[in-house]
């Protein structure tokens, strides 16, 4: 007995004991922590996914399911009728084609212009650079929503520097109800969140080594050739980051579409706004509950393309964010 307690005392004072104790403690701590993390992640994921799951499941509800209080999330008599109707009244594929054309076009313009401006700020010294970059920050801080009415006026009576009046005698309003304003503003670096994109590109180009351009210069590449063929391929992470942001935000945007009244034959999100009214009128569906089901199907149809874009680009997007020096 005494020997046993003696040995126990020895063991207790030896480093071995401490090791095993701390290992045990660590093991317990780690498993509690990872359990805590797991619960937290599941909870937050639920908050994010719950409305999506709700919308998707609702869009398969038949009439009986929608009035049956026993049915929750999983429909008993699933139907595709919501989708056929929504596709018909959204004029889905043609309008979606137009939308993608518009969104991808604007994104390409944004990529070109914002990368150019970011590159100019990152690599060249010129008088007034600090002040001008301050203007980029102003663009980030003052959102387009603040100048919505003046922007509307600028395109309602489109007359930059009096040029239109000079040639035709009066300001034109032909750009309203067309994608024109979006394209013009994006091409002049003032599109949707252009300030942010310029900032991202600027941070990225500043992080690239200067030796690349020096080598290009020695090898006889011109300024624009260096930018287009040497710097841009190196900027893939920043390009992907900006491309994803621009595609997704432009697709979901309602600022440009509502301010400049872009027609719903070009933008599927505007078509979605009117979907409930159209279906209610054309199909004589008067209960709000059922109208909502059609709307849910429409939302799913509108969301599918962005989710696909996102899932395709998601991995390289997150890697791009990590490597793009977005935060400099």
């Amino acid at each position, binding site marked *: 007995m005494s020997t046993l307690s003696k040995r126990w005392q020895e063991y207790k004072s030896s480093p071995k004991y401490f090791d095993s104790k701390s290992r045990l403690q660590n093991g317990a701590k780690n498993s509690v922590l990872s359990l805590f993390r797991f619960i937290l992640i599941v909870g937050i994921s639920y908050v*994010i996914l719950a409305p999506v799951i709700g919308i998707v499941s609702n869009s398969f509800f038949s009439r009986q399911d929608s009035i049956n209080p026993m049915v929750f999330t999983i429909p008993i008599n699933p139907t595709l009728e919501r989708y056929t109707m929504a596709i018909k009244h959204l004029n889905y594929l043609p309008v979606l084609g137009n939308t993608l054309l518009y969104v991808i076009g604007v994104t390409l313009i944004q990529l070109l212009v914002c990368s150019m401006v970011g590159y*100019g700020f990152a690599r060249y*010294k010129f008088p007034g650079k600090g002040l001008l970059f301050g203007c980029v920050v102003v663009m980030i801080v003052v959102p387009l*929503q603040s100048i919505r009415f003046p922007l509307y006026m*600028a395109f309602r009576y489109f007359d930059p520097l009096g040029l239109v009046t000079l040639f035709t005698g009066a300001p034109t309003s032909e750009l309203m109800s067309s994608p024109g304003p979006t394209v013009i503003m994006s091409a*002049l670096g003032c599109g949707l969140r252009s300030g942010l994109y310029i900032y991202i590109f600027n941070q990225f180009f500043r992080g690239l080594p200067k030796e690349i351009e020096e080598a290009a210069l020695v090898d006889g590449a011109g300024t624009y050739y260096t930018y287009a063929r040497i710097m841009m391929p190196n900027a893939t992470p920043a390009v992907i980051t900006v491309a994803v942001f621009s595609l997704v935000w432009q697709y979901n945007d309602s600022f440009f579409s509502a301010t400049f009244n872009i027609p719903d034959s070009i933008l599927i999100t505007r078509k979605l706004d009117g979907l409930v009214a159209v279906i209610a009128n054309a199909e004589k569906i008067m209960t709000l509950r059922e109208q909502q089901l059609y709307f849910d199907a429409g939302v799913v149809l509108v*969301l599918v393309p962005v989710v696909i874009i996102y899932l395709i680009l998601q991995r390289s997007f997150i890697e791009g964010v990590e490597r793009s*020096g977005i*935060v400099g």
Partner: protein
Amino acid sequence: MTQTAKKKKLRLSYEARNALRGYSFILPWLIGFLLFYVGCLVNLVRYSCSAFNTENLQEITWVGLDNFVTAFTAHGSFNQTLVSSIMDMLIDLPMIIFFSLFVAMLLNRKFKGRGLVRAIFFLPIILSADAVGAAITRATELMNAGVTGASAEMAAAAANGGVSVSYFIELFGELAMPPTVLEYIVGAVNRIASIIQGSGVQIILFIAALQSIPGSLYEVARIEGATGYETFWKVTFPMVMPHIITNTIYTLVDRFSTSQVVKLASDTYRNYYQYGLSSAFSLVSTLITIAILGLIVWLLNRRTFYYN
């Protein structure tokens, strides 16, 4: 002609030529900025001091500060909307910053299924946008109603000594927790969905920031025997402080541009044709937001340590 132009250009110094190249890169943006931003901001001030002829919007007459007087003294909901929008911004700001920093640290570790979790956490960037946002909001409300209904049932079932949130609120109140703090916490719990929806981009920025912290700092901290808690406050937090400023700017601007007061301003001109008043609303709310933003950034900046 081109020959002489070329010669003339060649005579410029290297710096001057470089400056010209720089200008050529930023030229499109410069034109756009002057035309749209500067032009529209000047017009915003001009319009806010004007009355419009609704038949022809180009006929405007100068009315001085009338629109501002109307906005503050006569308009039914402007004051209230302005104050509540700003309060919302200020309440959401710290919640979003801390939540997104926390989530970024969570997602920055390696664990099984991280790719999937990241994909889910960045979904709000897609979903919170305005066009489909309305539908999502409605679905969230339905879901919340379901949850509230369920918890009400639970409360009824467990009426004898069951869990009741209001009981805990009262308890903390009696423990002399200041009512404002209590209200803030209860409000924050109620806003959790909107906070999660609003922090997609911030999480991304923080993950990028955490990735850019040199690993050697953590190594030193570990060798010196710092606990996880100390490591966070002594290494992680100071290193992400500059990015907290970036995120503060982004969050405030984002919250402002989707706030009720901005909506009120656009409704005023689109639905009620009060163009001057709408411009006054925009001007006032923008100036107040920028002042708040400037103040917060200035306060944070004084406490920020820049590593580079």
